[in-house]
């Protein structure tokens, strides 16, 4: 018998037992539904995590701090006493947090490490305020350095490569507060940042200066960014200049808590991290951050896939049972076909294809419903989780097809035992009527 004819007859047999076929397919359909959704969730989750990391860190970046044993009692050091995270605010905070400052010596030492391209201290100058018109002054909660490798989304304007030393990237909140009607209006306007030089000894009125910047872009709220979003961004040189101006002459001068190391190749980030840790630094790569997120995603994905696999396992027994009963019910049919010259192998194929049809039907329906349900649910999920226009369920066509194909194969495997029974059936026994 030709394979095409066997497949057609297999499909017809199933159609003649519609209810049973559908019920058997249902179990495998539940499995297909769960597995398809979990794979889509895993894909979406990983893409999302990847996007988060790309929006917040440079994959070539290794963030370095110098950490001492936190639980150990610290000796008082007048050098670090005036230094705290964020710099500028005097107090013993640093010593108690167990963080030692990174000095210029450290930076030179880190620069020598193999695969390190550059080391930039994290200048985050504590400036006084920012103003556009000279009258309305606003506190600057965070002023950071711009990194070209970090993906930002812009409400207006944009940055081509590096930021010039007299340029600034605002965010939407500041653009509005500074009195610009729209983000577009802010672009090309001048804003002024005021900074005060810190004093070690109080000498009356402190020295202060204004620095002008041209707005090149306004960054927009993104579901991805957590570092850059709240910060106003200026070039490293501009930040250094402000930082030095503020801290020069104090204990905090040329001492930093965080340095950013750029590695020649993202592949080598791990190597550099290990070397730096050997030298007593504490280092974190982009992968460390991504790794934590991915572990979470993978655990969740694993649980969901487990449920799907369980449903598939159940359906395997369903298929064996259904097909076995079908063989028993159709002994006469099998006997007749064999009497008419159908080989045992072809009879086996007939039942194998029936199992395959069940797998195809269940897999197709389950995966199809998952894609439909997921596509409908995506905007609501993103809304509920505040992801903006990022979708959490991403259906890769190849993955969906793969799920169906694998379920067909599993169904065929489940159908082997009943098919073998059918192929071995003795036609004389089967056609005995008394």
């Amino acid at each position, binding site marked *: *018998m030709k394979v095409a004819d066997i497949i057609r007859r297999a499909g017809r047999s199933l159609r003649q037992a519609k209810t049973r076929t559908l019920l058997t397919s249902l179990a495998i359909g539940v499995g297909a539904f769960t597995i398809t959704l979990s794979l889509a969730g895993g894909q979406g989750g990983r893409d999302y995590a990847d996007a988060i990391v790309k929006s917040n860190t440079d994959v070539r970046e290794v963030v370095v701090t110098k950490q001492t044993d936190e639980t150990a009692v610290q000796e008082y050091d007048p050098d670090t006493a005036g230094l705290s995270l964020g710099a500028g605010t005097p107090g013993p905070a640093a010593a108690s947090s167990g963080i030692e400052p990174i000095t210029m010596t450290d930076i030179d030492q880190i620069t020598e490490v193999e695969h390190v391209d550059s080391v930039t201290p994290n200048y985050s100058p504590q400036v006084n305020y920012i103003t556009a018109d000279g009258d309305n002054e606003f506190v600057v909660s965070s002023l950071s350095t711009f990194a070209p490798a970090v993906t930002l989304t812009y409400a207006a304007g944009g940055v081509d490569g590096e930021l010039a030393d007299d340029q600034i990237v605002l965010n939407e909140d500041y653009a509005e507060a500074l009195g610009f009607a729209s983000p577009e209006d802010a672009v090309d306007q001048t804003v002024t940042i005021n900074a005060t030089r810190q004093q070690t000894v109080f000498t009356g009125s402190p020295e202060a200066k204004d620095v002008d910047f041209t707005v090149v872009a306004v960054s927009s709220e993104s579901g991805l960014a957590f570092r850059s979003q709240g910060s106003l961004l200026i070039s490293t040189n501009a930040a250094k200049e402000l930082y030095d101006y503020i801290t020069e002459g104090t204990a905090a001068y040329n001492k930093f808590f965080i340095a950013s190391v750029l590695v020649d190749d993202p592949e080598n980030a791990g190597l550099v991290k290990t070397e730096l840790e050997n030298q007593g630094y504490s280092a974190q790569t982009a992968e460390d951050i991504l790794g934590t997120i991915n572990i979470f995603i993978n655990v969740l994905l694993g649980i969901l896939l487990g449920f799907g696999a369980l449903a598939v396992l159940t359906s395997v027994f369903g298929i064996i049972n259904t097909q076995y009963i079908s063989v028993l019910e159709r002994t006469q049919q099998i006997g*007749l076909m064999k*009497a*008419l*010259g159908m*080989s045992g*192998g*072809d009879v086996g194929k007939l039942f194998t294809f029936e199992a395959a049809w069940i797998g195809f039907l269940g897999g197709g329906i389950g995966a199809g419903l998952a894609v439909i349900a997921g596509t409908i649910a995506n905007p609501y999920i993103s809304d509920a989780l505040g992801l903006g226009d990022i979708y959490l369920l991403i259906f890769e066509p190849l993955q969906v097809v793969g799920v169906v194909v694998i379920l067909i194969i599993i169904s065929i495997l489940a159908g082997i035992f009943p098919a073998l029974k059918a192929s071995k059936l003795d036609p004389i026994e089967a056609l005995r009527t008394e």
Partner: protein
Amino acid sequence: MIEVKHITKTYGKKQNTFIAINDVSFTIPNGKSVAILGKSGSGKSTLMHAMSGLDRPQQGQVVIDGRDILKLKSKDVDAFRAQKMSFIFQSFFVQANESCYDNVSLPLEIAKVPRSKRRQKVEAALSAVQLLDKKKSRARDLSGGQKQRLAIARAIVNEPDILFADEPTGNLDSTTGGVVEDFLFNYAKDRGATLIVVTHDEDLARKCDARINIKDGVIESTTGFAERPTKKKKVMG
């Protein structure tokens, strides 16, 4: 030509051995209609199964057109049956859920007849048993006589050389049975096919060219054979 040589078929083992067919031999020329006549349990069906290669008797040969089909591989016997033989059973064995068309198409599919040639053959076979108008009806909706006519259509669709009929009218009243018999004999006559009818019905046996009377697994007598090869072998009876 079908030559049956010293066929012996036993069931069971050792002390429980039951001899269903005991050293049976005969020769059927091509194009003849032969009745295998005997009471219930005499071994008629067993003999037919052996002759068609459905069953493998412990001893003997079944030589059809010079080939001993009992020596063929099971795949080749299957192919042989698909090409050359056909069956009609007492209980019809039509597929109740399938259309008459699909029922009749089955042997063609098994014999790997291309799809393009099937339609014409199926319709010709259905016409021959006057069921063409029921082409699309499901077999379950047919009467008993119609079901057996459908079985005949299925049996003749691939134009077999040998037609086996095991109590073909056993489940039918005499009128419908007579109609069914006519279809069978007409096909055999028109095609020059060999028809082997297994029956306990004297009237049906009388319509055949020859007959083999069988009792308790041995040939009791034969009539209608030109030379009577079986008479000589009947010593064991």
